[in-house]
């Protein structure tokens, strides 16, 4: 193959702006080779370089006594006591999933699992946050079916329980769905593996699957907007093989236990290029690669293709030379490729040879260190228009409509396609506030949740950013877990538009404030920009994945109350209906400001719920979020199979009281005898508490109107199949 001539037009085809190409010319003082141009485009695209977001990401709180490793490595690491650590991250695979839903979503799962086990952790839980267009859109059903099947096919085969997540529908995602995959793993706190190479002349080893032409240019594709030709980009999507990934996991963990590994990095976006540069850069070393040694699955692959391939299930490792035989034997056992493809060199140089020729000879540090960084202009999001009057409606009818609506009906259709019990440690399954997974062989457990309310973020990015973190905090607290830390997956439109950049900046400010106030540092994350099709941006969607710790399973709080329990609401209510699920799901309205989050009150309320559990006073708890008190009570009733009766509130319309979405609230259930003591403790903690009703019977009663529990169950549990046209 003859290589094309490198010039500004070719650079533009690689997604490099004219000033970025000029920067390369200045840096090299010559024209780059074709392979070098490919390497620059891979390293300098938005996906790998974070060039638009870096300035703002630096403002996020990332430290705390619980943090072993914050952002910058493959995943964040948090201390969970007893010499153990949880390793976790969330990452997007939006563009590939829109182009090819099954493989796009599957390889998203594969990538995030690799990020976790690269650090020496065995994955123990996965989640995913999915945003699709409106169900009536002709593409939506096939995207939902394909993405869910893809996630299931990968996670189920790999053998990690998929325990939670989110699924939303909104027309803003019609041309650009979001697939955010989360994974968490468990490791010994003193046996975490990092990517920094060390030592000169150390072998650089290629592990795992062979390299093919799939995914060439994937990261660059993921850094551009879609036009009408999105489907034509299918060849840039990689194909996943979870069976190879499972073997790679077992082989890597065996290899790490053998003491052979100096450093390790998975080949994700921009494959061999990104992983090699990362290891050299972090270790202040150069890397020399001999591509003739790279195991290839296709014939006559060029250096350019090998450097940019995003073939899955591959790792790069710097090995202790004396352990080569041990390492090779482990990879032979698992029938995986093992090849020495280069070595570390003392000078700041990235040297790539192929077929006896030098294909790239670049200053290594400049590839990441000299990457462009932008301070994009941004404008503050203007205030949302005030909430127009909300019509009156029978609250029980409104509840039934909400519980069967696309965004609030049961997600069992989705999570029953995911093995959520493999590894036999899933204590709280999907469908609750947060999933709870036991730390194998102990009485400890970890709680996981993924949250964001994009409607809020659109109306008020700062409050929406806060709310995403606050809701995660609340979901963890409602299961009895102490919130530890978060990973953020920031999905936005084109950052070159000041109003989109303004959404991004606002959300970051809100997330930062909430993480600080709730003591949940950001330890890993991912930014996905350019989520636009034909100029239409998605809703700002900063997905927050959060992890909490239960030091004993005795601390776990169920969501299902007992019949005859008193129901109490923790937190303050004003009946906030702006941007609520009620007005959106029932009338397609999105007016009013997002609810504001009082972070101090949020923290106190969460701490109170956990304290009440420690005192043995409550039988169940559930957080109040979309659909407010009414939906929370209905969900608890369905979980328990017992009815509930909620009283109306004075001074508030029934719809505002039952469906208002004020933040910082929980619904708790307790035996009658405990109510006085709960009230006393709440007052002492300066947290509002009020009795709102009782459990029992076989209806859900809201003030004076009611709906049968069986009727509610029917609309709630068949809702998703109905959306998919299966019922």
């Amino acid at each position, binding site marked *: 193959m003859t290589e094309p001539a490198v010039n500004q037009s070719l650079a533009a085809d690689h997604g490099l702006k004219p000033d970025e190409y000029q920067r390369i010319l200045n840096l090299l003082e010559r024209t780059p080779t074709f392979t070098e141009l490919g390497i620059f485009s891979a390293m300098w695209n938005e996906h790998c370089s974070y060039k638009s977001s870096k300035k703002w990401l630096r403002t996020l709180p990332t430290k705390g006594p619980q943090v072993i490793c914050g952002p910058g490595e493959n995943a964040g690491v948090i201390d969970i006591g007893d010499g153990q650590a949880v390793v976790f991250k969330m990452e997007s695979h939006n563009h590939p999933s829109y182009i090819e839903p099954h493989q796009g979503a599957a390889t998203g799962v594969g990538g995030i699992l690799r990020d976790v086990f690269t650090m020496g952790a065995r994955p123990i839980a996965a989640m995913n946050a999915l945003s699709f267009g409106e169900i009536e859109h002709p593409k939506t059903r096939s995207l939902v079916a394909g993405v869910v*099947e893809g996630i*299931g*096919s990968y996670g*189920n*085969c*790999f*053998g990690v329980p998929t325990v939670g997540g989110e699924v939303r529908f909104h027309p803003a995602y019609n041309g650009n769905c979001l697939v955010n995959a989360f994974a968490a793993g468990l490791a010994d706190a003193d046996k975490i593996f990092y990517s920094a190479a060390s030592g000169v002349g150390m072998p650089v080893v290629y592990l795992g699957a062979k390299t093919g032409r799939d995914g060439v240019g994937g990261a660059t594709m993921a850094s551009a907007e879609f036009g009408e030709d999105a489907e034509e980009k299918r060849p840039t999507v990689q194909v996943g*093989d*979870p*069976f*190879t990934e*499972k*073997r790679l996991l*077992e082989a890597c963990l065996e290899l790490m236990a053998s003491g052979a590994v100096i450093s390790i990095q998975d080949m994700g976006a921009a494959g061999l290029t990104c992983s090699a540069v990362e290891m050299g850069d972090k270790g202040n070393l150069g890397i020399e690669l001999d591509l003739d040694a790279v195991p290839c699955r296709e014939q006559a692959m060029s250096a350019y293709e090998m450097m940019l391939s995003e073939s899955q299930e591959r790792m790069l490792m710097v090995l202790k030379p004396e352990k080569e035989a041990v390492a090779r034997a482990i990879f032979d*056992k*698992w*029938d995986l490729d093992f090849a020495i493809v280069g070595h570390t060199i003392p000078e700041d140089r990235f040297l790539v040879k192929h077929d006896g020729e030098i294909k790239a000879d670049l200053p290594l540090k400049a590839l990441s260190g000299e990457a462009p960084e932008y301070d994009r202009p941004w404008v503050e999001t203007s205030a949302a228009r005030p909430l127009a009057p909300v019509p009156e409606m029978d609250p029980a009818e409104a509840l039934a409509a909400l519980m069967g609506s696309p965004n609030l009906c049961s997600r*069992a259709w989705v*999570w*029953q*396609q*995911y*093995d*959520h*019990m*493999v*590894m*036999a*440690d*899933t*204590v709280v*399954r999907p469908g609750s506030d947060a999933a709870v997974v*036991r730390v194998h062989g102990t009485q400890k457990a970890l709680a996981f949740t993924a949250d964001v309310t994009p409607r809020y973020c659109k109306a008020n990015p700062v409050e929406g950013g806060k709310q995403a973190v606050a809701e995660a905090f609340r979901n963890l607290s409602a299961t009895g877990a102490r919130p530890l830390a978060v990973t953020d997956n920031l999905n936005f439109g084109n950052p070159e538009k000041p109003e989109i950049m303004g959404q991004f900046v606002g959300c970051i400010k809100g997330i930062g404030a909430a993480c600080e106030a709730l003591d949940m540092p950001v330890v890993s994350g991912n930014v996905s920009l350019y989520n636009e099709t034909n100029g239409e941006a998605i809703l700002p969607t900063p997905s927050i994945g959060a992890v909490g710790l239960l030091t004993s*399973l005795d601390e776990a709080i169920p969501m299902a109350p007992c019949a005859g329990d008193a129901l109490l609401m923790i937190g303050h209510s004003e009946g906030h209906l702006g941007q609520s699920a009620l007005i959106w799901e029932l009338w397609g309205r999105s007016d009013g400001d997002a609810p504001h989050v009082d972070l101090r009150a949020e923290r106190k309320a969460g701490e109170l719920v956990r304290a009440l559990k420690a005192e043995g006073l409550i039988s169940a708890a559930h957080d109040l979020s979309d659909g407010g008190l009414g939906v929370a009570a209905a969900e608890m009733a369905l979980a328990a199979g017992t009815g509930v009766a909620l009283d109306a509130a004075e001074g508030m319309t029934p719809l505002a009281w039952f469906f208002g979405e004020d933040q910082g609230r929980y619904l708790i259930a307790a035996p009658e005898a405990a109510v006085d003591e709960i009230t006393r403790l709440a007052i002492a903690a300066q947290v509002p508490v009020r009795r709102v009703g009782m459990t029992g019977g076989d209806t859900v009663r809201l003030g004076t109107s009611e709906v049968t529990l069986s009727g509610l169950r029917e609309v709630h549990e068949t809702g998703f199949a109905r959306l998919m046209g299966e019922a």
Partner: protein
Amino acid sequence: MKSAVIVFPGSNCDRDLAVALGAAAGRPASMVWHKDAALPPGLDVVAIPGGFSFGDYLRCGAIAARSPIMRAVVDFAHRGGIVLGICNGFQILIEAGLLPGALMRNQTLKFVCRDVHLSVETLQSPFTSAFGNQRVIRVPVAHHDGAYIADYALAARLEAEDRIAFRYVDADGDATEAANPNGSVGNIAGVLSDNRRILGMMPHPERLADPQLGGTDGAPMFRSLVEAVAEVA
């Protein structure tokens, strides 16, 4: 009870099964690699776990059934050894010719992971004797290819010989169509070999054998094995 769990590349319920066997027996199960040619000496029970051996490529269980260790497992079974196959393990036992019938893609064409109710159809086996009066149990399924297919003659023979170990039923114990998660013939969830020493089943009793995981209905299976082995000894 001395038990072994066979580990294939792609097995992923191997640890879960070993935990359940170990808890019942009071001694750990040995883990045996698929490339080994022989089983450890003195075994009472060989267990083949769930998962995706060889990625479910070709046909679920087909490649694993031809692994070196499976010759030893077949010999063990032919000598009257107790062999348990769960989920992918059931698929492997069928592919190895140790159990009759076939397992096909679920009728819904979707992977299904949820709790199901099973009726314990016979107590006459080393896997089911301890269920006693507990004739309807709740355990999970998690599979894509779990529709048990048998022709009329085979189904009739299994029935006549009391070799159907479990059926999918509703909470009241009725084998309704709605209770069948995958389209299995006759709601069959597990079958015994003609000497009643080999059981293959799609549901996962090992996942509900610990009260912390929300149920213990799977535990009597492992108790049955321990008791059966103790009686012989």
